[in-house]
């Protein structure tokens, strides 16, 4: 009986490990959250992601490459922090995230650094295919990390960034702490 229980526990543990992709990062950024004046957190996986995927699949005005991109996703996690004053955080604050991407499978694709700003794009490779992407953007008053788990077509993603083939966006902020809010800076500034 003990052996059966032990075996079933092992099966459960192994399936949990198997289910979690190596492309998923541990978003351990509580220290930055405390410093930030505005926070946006997105954690989409499992059922909630499935709901969004289903709804998007039947939406008019969304191009089929976007639908294809979304369909294959296994998880998406985003953290955006805005700071009232410059130099509110250190580059080292994101070391935890960077360290995770020094592990196997992760490849730094683009690294643009123009002090004090930095923009790094990492891809996670699995069987020679992109199985995840992480974008790490560090600006004087803004810190953003987006971790996408699943196959990603970068071209579609860039087009999406230019808001091509999309209905007008609503801004959804979740888990916003009760702090004085700053208007989000204009994109690209």
């Amino acid at each position, binding site marked *: 009986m003990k052996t059966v229980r032990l075996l079933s526990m092992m099966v459960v543990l192994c399936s949990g490990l198997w289910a979690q992709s190596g492309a998923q990062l541990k978003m351990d950024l509580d220290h930055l959250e405390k410093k930030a004046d505005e926070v946006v957190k997105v954690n989409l996986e499992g059922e909630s992601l499935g709901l*969004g995927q289903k709804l998007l699949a039947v939406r008019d005005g969304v191009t089929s490459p976007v639908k294809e991109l979304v369909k294959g996703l296994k998880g998406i996690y985003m953290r955006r922090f805005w700071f009232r004053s410059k130099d509110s955080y250190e580059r080292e604050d994101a070391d935890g995230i960077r360290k995770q991407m020094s592990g196997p499978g992760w490849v730094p694709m683009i690294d*643009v650094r123009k002090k004090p700003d930095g923009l790094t794009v990492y891809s996670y490779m699995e069987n020679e295919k992109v199985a995840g*992407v992480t*974008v790490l*953007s560090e600006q004087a008053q803004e810190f953003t990390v987006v971790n996408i788990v699943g196959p990603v077509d970068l071209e579609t993603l860039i087009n999406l960034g230019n808001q091509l083939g999309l209905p007008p966006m609503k801004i959804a902020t979740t888990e916003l702490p009760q702090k004085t809010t700053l208007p989000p800076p204009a994109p690209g500034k």
Partner: protein
Amino acid sequence: MDRMEDELRQIYRRHTPSPDFTERVMGQVRAEAKRKFIPFRWAAVGALAASLTVAFFVGRQQQKQQRLQQEAELAETQLLESLQVAGFKIGQAREAVLRPISQEEVRP
């Protein structure tokens, strides 16, 4: 033939009802009405209970549906927003890589 006539006469002879005849008949009518009313009442109560149960479950289902719809819309918005942010940043990075280096940047 006589026997038959006798029998008929016996059957059709005038009977005088007993003094409590009306009371007994009315009592039976009342009892019968009551007997019929009880199942009807229970049926009405049952139908009402069934209607309420159905209404409760339909309402709950609608609430669940509405909640799911709201969750789906929020998830969809968050999903697109996150992808847009990522796409925008990757586009920026690509532009920076593809941008020709200016003379100012080349000079030491």
